[in-house]
Every structure is written in C-alpha cells, then in structure tokens.
C-alpha cells in the first residue's frame, strides 16, 4: 500500500473522530464514540494501525510518525469532549421551588445587661488610660465608709436612716456597726491602706442608699470611682484624664468643665461637665483627695497628692441608650434585655 493511501486513511479517521467527539451530547454518547475510535481491540484507530504492515518498509518510519500524530490528535479531541461534558454538568439551573428569601436559622444568643456593658466599656477605657480595677467589700465598717473618708460622726450622710446598717442580732458583740457601702470610695481606702503610692485604680460596683424608688432613684445602683495618687499630681491632671476619658467614651474630642462643689473626701471638690453636641452634660463629681484622707491611710500629704472622681453608671448608661426610667434596669424583662 502506498504511503499516501495510509496517510489519507489516517486523516479521514482523524476528521471523523473529531467530528464525532465534538458532536457528543452526553457521557454515554462519548463512551460510544470512544469505543468506536479509541477502543483497545476493535477501535478504528487500532484497525488502521494494523494496516501499517501493508506499507512499504521503507515508508514505515514516516507512516509511524503520522500514526502517532493522529493518535494524539484523536486522544486530545476525546479529552476535550470529556471536559466539555463535565463542565456542562456543572451549569446551574434555578430551582423554582427554593425560596432564598425565607429567614435564616438564627442561633439563640443571650444579651448582657446594659449596666454590665457600660461597666465593661468604662473599664476598658480606663484600662487604656492606665487604671487597674480594684475590688472591695460591699458590706463595710464605718471606718472605710465614713471616718477614713473624712465624713465625721455629725455628718448628715451618716444618719442611720440614710444608710443600710446591718442588724446587730446574731453578730459578735464588740464588732463595730456594719453597713452596705453608700459609695465605691471605700475601695480607695482599702487599696491605699495595703499599698504605698503610686496608686492608679478604678473601683466599680453596687452601692446602696435608702431612696424612695422613682424614675431616677433606686436603693441600689452602680458607681465607678477613679483614684490616682503620686508625687506631683494636680487638678490639671484630673481635668486631662477626664477629658481623655470623655473623649474616648463619646468617640470625639470633648472639653471638660469644672464647677465648684463639696464632697467630704476631696478638696477642692468639683462637679464635672463634658461639652457634647453643644451642651454641657453632667459627668459626675471629682476633686483632689483631701489631705485628711491621705493621712487616714498613712500617706504624707506633703509628699503625695492625688485626685479621685466618681460617676453614676446608671446615668451614663441611661443617657447613652435612651433609658429614662431607672427602674427598667431592675425588671429583668427579657424584652428589655434583648434591646441591648
């Protein structure tokens, strides 16, 4: 057989195989075509290959070369068709029965009390300003709640009707009277009593005063108290720390204003306002720690000075979240809790 006949046969085979593979529409048609052209026993390529023995031996190398060329062409066409069919299988069709606007499956999530959230935020800000949280007892003796804080025996704040004193029944005679702390300043005293200056702390927690319950009063509420004692601490430092605090809390630079006030444990004492949205808003009370307080804990007021400030958590939290009635904090209505 002349070489040219063999080559013509191979070319025809290639043309037909390519057309057949391109025409396949599904996997079974492709398999049929594969068996027809590439089948190991009776595939047409195999059959054509067998006819090579009839080619003149001198032309066989050229025939073999052509055979290999056609073989890889057909193989490539098969693989291309195979890939084409696989991709086609991945083409998506919209399911008219599936409604993607149906609600998702929401995991049940609990909510932290807004007071806790406020405390966490304040603690975080004060932490960044270098203040470490200190804890202290809620049931206090008169020394820590009054005497050491320069609240003398005849001060109206000590009136038994204005405090939650503990009943003496069943308590050891000789122990002094105990009461629920009326301010978190007690923690200042406890910290200063056990550590020398410098001191840079905040104390947060529950405080108790027998108020008639109304929109703005509840017999239990929360305070944050800050204290910084060191050499060379001035009222300018107090103003600066409060400005940083208020700016962090509100997320924008604000100014601070001091109005004179009176607290037994600080002197000078001031009310602190922050200027926000064109208004002065009350922040809390502050001042320079009274020398008597420093002396009461064994510090030398000629050596160190310091400032203290106190904020009402309920008021800050209420103002931020638009809670105008303090009683909401205590109902524990989950519809309320879920709002935060």
């Amino acid at each position, binding site marked *: 057989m002349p070489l040219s006949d063999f080559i013509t046969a191979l070319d025809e085979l290639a043309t037909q195989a390519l057309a057949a593979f391109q025409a396949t529409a599904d996997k079974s048609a492709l398999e049929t075509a594969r068996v027809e052209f590439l089948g190991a026993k009776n595939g047409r390529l195999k059959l054509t290959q067998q006819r090579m023995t009839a080619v003149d031996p001198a032309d066989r190398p050229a025939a073999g070369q052509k055979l290999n060329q056609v073989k890889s062409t057909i193989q490539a066409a098969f693989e291309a068709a195979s890939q084409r069919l696989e991709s086609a299988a991945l083409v998506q069709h919209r399911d008219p029965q599936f409604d993607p606007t149906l609600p998702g499956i929401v*995991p049940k999530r*609990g*909510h*932290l*009390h807004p007071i*806790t959230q406020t405390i966490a935020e304040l*603690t975080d800000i*004060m*932490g960044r*300003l*270098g203040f*470490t*949280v200190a804890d202290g*007892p809620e*049931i*206090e003796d008169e020394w820590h709640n009054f005497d050491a804080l320069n609240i003398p025996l005849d001060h*109206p704040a000590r*009136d*038994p*009707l204005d405090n*939650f*004193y*503990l*009943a003496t*029944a069943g308590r050891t005679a000789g*122990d002094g009277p*105990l009461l629920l702390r009326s301010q978190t300043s007690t923690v200042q005293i406890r910290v200063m009593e056990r550590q020398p200056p*410098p001191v*840079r702390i905040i104390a947060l927690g529950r405080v*108790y005063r*027998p108020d008639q319950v109304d929109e703005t009063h509840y*017999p239990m509420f929360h305070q944050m108290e800050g204290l910084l004692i060191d050499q*060379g601490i*001035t*009222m*300018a*430092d107090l*103003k*600066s720390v409060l400005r940083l605090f208020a700016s962090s809390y509100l997320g924008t630079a604000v*100014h601070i204003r*001091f*109005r*004179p006030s*009176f607290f037994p444990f600080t*002197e*000078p*004492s*001031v*009310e602190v306002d922050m200027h926000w949205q064109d208004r002065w808003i009350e922040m809390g009370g502050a001042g*320079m720690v009274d*020398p008597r307080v420093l002396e009461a804990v064994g510090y030398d007021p000629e050596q160190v*000075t310091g400032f203290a400030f106190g904020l009402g958590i309920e008021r800050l939290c209420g103002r931020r979240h638009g809670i105008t009635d303090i009683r909401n*904090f*205590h109902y*524990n*209505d*989950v*519809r309320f*809790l*879920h709002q935060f």
Partner: protein
Amino acid sequence: MLVSWNWLRDYVPLDVTPTEFADRLMMAGLNHESTEPYGADFVVDLEVTSNRPDCLGHLGIAREAALLFQQPLRVPQPELSEQGEAASTAVRVDIEAPDLCRQYSARLIRGVRIGPSPAWLAVRLQSLGIALINNVVDATNYVLMECGQPLHAFDYSALAGGRIVVRRARTGERLTAIDHKVYELDPTMCVIADAERPVALAGVMGGAESEVQTTTRDLLIEAAEFSPLSVRATARKLKLHSPSSYRFERGIDAAGIDWASRRCCELILRSGGGQLAPGQVFAGSAPSERPPVTLRLSQLPRILGIDVPVERVQQILEGLGCVELRRGPGSISVAAPSWRRDLIREIDLVEEVARVHGYDKIPEDTRVPMVASHRSESDRVHATVRATLAAAGLDEALTLSMVSERSAECFSPWTDAAPLAADTPILEGADRLRRSLIPSLIAARQSNESKQNPDAALFEVAKIYLRQPAGLPREQWTIGLVVGGDYFQAKGLVTALLRALHVASTPAEQSVSMPLLDISRSIALVLEGEPLAFIGELSALGMRQSELRARASIAEINLELLVRHARLIPQHAPLSNFPVVTRDLNLVVDESVRWTDLETTVRSTVGPLLESLEFREVYRDPAKDGADKKRLLFTLTLRASDRTLTNEEADNVRVAVVAAAHSQLSAKLLEG
C-alpha cells in the same frame, strides 16, 4: 436658697442681668436651679452645698457676688434706742445643756403693737414664698432670710417666771407646737423651757402657748446657737423640718447672733413700736477666736497645676472676709471670718482661691504619664463566664442584693448560718442579705412568665453574703442561672463553663437533698474538696412555691473557686496525625451503677489511648436483662500519638474495658 434680685441689690450694686449673675455664681459654686419673674422682681433659686451655710441668707449671697463682680458690699448696721428697765431685771436665761446650746441671747421689747408688716417687707417675704403672719414673726423671718440666723419671738407674758431654760426634754413631756400638733419629747431633744414647761423645740419650732398673738404686748427675742446634730436628730425624729432647723443643722455664724438679734429688734420697733429694754440677757460662751490659717503660695501650683498671682490671692481672701494677719516670704496667714466655719486648713484656702479665680484657668491637656494596667484574673474569668453564658442563649439579669425572709429561706446551698439582715428593707419586706442568687433569678423568670415572655433563660454574676463568726461577712462572687427544661440543660451549662475556663480537674459529683430541687434530679459538684456548684431541676414543691408554669432548672456556681482553677493561658499539646479507631460498647449493669463509676473505670483502664468517651444512651429491657438492670451504651474513640492503631489493638482495649467493668462493676457485655 431663693434669692430676691431686688433684695440682693440692697447690699451690692450689680449691673449685670439675673442670668449673667446666675451663670457667674454657678461657676463659683452656687448651682443655678431656676429664675422666675415675681412682679417687678426676679426670684433666683440657687443650690447651696452643705459646707456653705453662710450662703443661706441674702447677705451671704451678696458677699459672694461682691467678690465675683468686684463691687462693694454694704451691710446694714442696726440702729437701736433702749428705754426703761434693763432686760436682765425681767428675764433670766440658763443653759443646762451646754453641749446642745453654746450661746443664747434674749432681748426684751415692751408694749409692741401686733399688726401687719409694712408692704416693702411683706412683698419680699412673699416673693420667697414665705407666708405672712404678723409684723413680729415676719421680722424674724426677714432676718432669717437676710443673714441666715434663725430667730424666735416669744410672748413674754406666756413665759412662767420670765425664765428661759435650755435643757434636754424630760421623758413624758409634750409640746403643742405652732402647727398645733402635739409632739412627744424625749431626752435626746433640746427644748427651751420656762420655769415650768417646754415652750419651744430648740431650733426646730416654737410652741403654740407662747406664740405671738394679736394680744401680745411684750416680746422676748431669742437668738441662739444650737448644736447641728441635735437639731437634725430632733427635726428628723419628729418629721419637723423648717427653714430654722435647716440652717442650724448646717451651722450658723456664731459671731453673728448679736447682729441678727439687734436687726430683728430694729425692724419690730419700726413697724410695731414699743420699747427695747436696755441690754441683752446672754448665757453660754461667745465664740472663741479661731487659730489663723496659713496658705503657702507654693501649694497653689502643687494642687491646682497653675500659678495664681499673689495680688489675686490677696484680693480673693480679702473679699471672702479673711483678715490678713501676716505675710511671710511665699505665704499668707489669715483669720477666717466667723461665717466661714469651713475655712480651717490650708487646703480650704486653696479651694477658695481656685473656685473664685476660676477652674476654667486650669488646663485640660497635661501629659499624664503612661503606665501599664492589667486585667485581673478575676476580671478575665468574669468576662469569659458572661460571654459563655450569653453565647449559650442566656440573658443577664440584675437583681437586688437583699431579699425577703421567705425568699432567703427557700434556698441556701452554701451555708446553714442565718442570713444577715439590714435595719432598713431595700424594698418592701426585703431586708435579708441573700445567701444565694437563685431565689431572685427564679422570681425574675416567673415575672417574665407573667408578662408572657415564656422561657426566660437568665443568669447573674453577683455577690452572696455569708455570715462569719467575727469581722466582715464573707462576700462570695457567684454565678446563678435559671433555664427552662430539665436537669441536663442546667448541668450542660456548668460543663460549658468548666471547659471555657480550661479547668483541669474533674469535679466529684455528690447527691444533695434540697426541698427546692427534685431529690433525684439534683447534684453538688465538688472540686478538690470544695463545693463548686449546685445543679438541679425544680421539685414539684419548688415549682409551686415559685409559681412557675414551665419546668425549670437551676445552677449556682462558686465563681471564686472557678477563678482559682481557671487556666487563663492554656498550653498547646501536639496533635496526633494518626487516624482514630472507634469501638461501641453496650454493657448491662445494676441500676445502682452510675455513669461516673463506669467513666472512672473506662478512663483508668484505657489510659492515654482514649481520645474521648461518649455516652450514647441508657436503655432498659427487664424481660431480657432482669429487674433493676440497665444498659449503658457508649463509644470509645482511640488514637495513638505515634502510630496508626490496628484493629487488633483496638479490640484488645475493648476486651480490657469489658473485663475491668465486669470485675469492678459486675457489668456484662451485650453482644450485637
């Protein structure tokens, strides 16, 4: 303190508006409450802090204004002419309780005509909302509002023996006050008595029998200094608060009594005529001179962070009424005015200079040194606990630290000692300091149920209060939670907390018996010998007592113990990349065998190959297994760190587990 704008300007010329006036005073310590027009006048309401009783009269406010606006202060000087026999011939004053009354001055006016006050005086009192009585009582009220010194006018003819005795009330004595109510007196109270009986409550209220009436002819004018503590206690006990008691409670100007007495007599004589008897009858001791106060100028920058020029300091101190005694290099010594009892120490002068000079002069941008702060372990654990429980779907409650007796008694797992009680309940009936958070949380769940919020799952992190033999009570940080559903809901939450905090040791489980909880479905967890938690489903009784509708379970955990056992910095252990092999087992055991018994046996038998042990099911088939038997189904997951386990090794483990369970727990393997 209500201030009449017109009245005020008798003492100080002010060319500012009432608004400018109020703004400036606010920045000097007198908070502005309101300003209301009153006819041609304005009434300005100022808040006076308890350290400034000198501002409880128009003169005191005028003194502040004169200093702040740099204007002269004009204090009126009473002009009196005295006639007839000396007061001391008709009046005797004795102070028998010098601790309650330091000084007492009496003046006598004879032949006065009682009638209405002159219009100029009447309108001023009315502008301040003070009721007009008659020219005498109105004059005492006028002087009260002028200088802050309370005064009292007695009908002299009603004073037996012409005597004034300042003493403690005797047990059983009573007084009909000018409000015509009868008050029971006791020896803690200071009274003004005549020769026979109490005629007034010292500093609080006068008596009806000696009050000035239209028929009154002769007056005894009292000006005195009563003890703040005694006046406050009496006013409070009798619920009798008056402008007088308010001022005595805060302390009056001890050197101003005579001025007030003479000023009052002057006004009475002008409106009601009569003759002022020469002299006063005085008992007690005049105020002694107070020690000078020295201000080191260096203290101003040390405390305030700014310098104040020495001339300004002098101007401020002088304006306050201080008299400069001595000026040293860098210091000023002054005598503080008698009306400023609060100026005793150097720091008091520092505050005065700062407040008048202006806090706006203090900068707000100093460079406060940076220091490291750290979150305590306790803080971190609290945060993890809250995050874990919130992630598990529980809402955080906030309940009161005090509860009712009934609530306190219904559950107290941590102590048998009685709860501490307060003298005053925090809310109606709630006077016990709680020993557990659970009763409050159950009440919160119940109140949600009643508001149609079914299935409130709540937790709280708070202290409980445990009585100690001596000293302060123990305050234990505690986690309480209440959830809907059975025992396992609550128990799983406790396990979740232990895992979140990487607590290494496994708590022992002990049976408990508490009426609130189902006796079968409750347990105590004990961690290394200390009670860690109490968990349980509410008993039928507990449900009824709590008025709950839907089944609920609770857990209470000692948070402080958790803090001690928490591993806040977990350490990495290498992971094995070899595959796991699992083996299921189904063992028949006696009912008395508990899961923890089996778990202990399995864990000690398998050793380090055990990656996890998972409980599957408990199942009972008395027909096949006999009575009082149960089947425990569970899965062992095995993995080695250094090799792939063969099936043969896994089978050997399984055989060993069965053998150990058989020998230790009489368990029988159920094949298939």
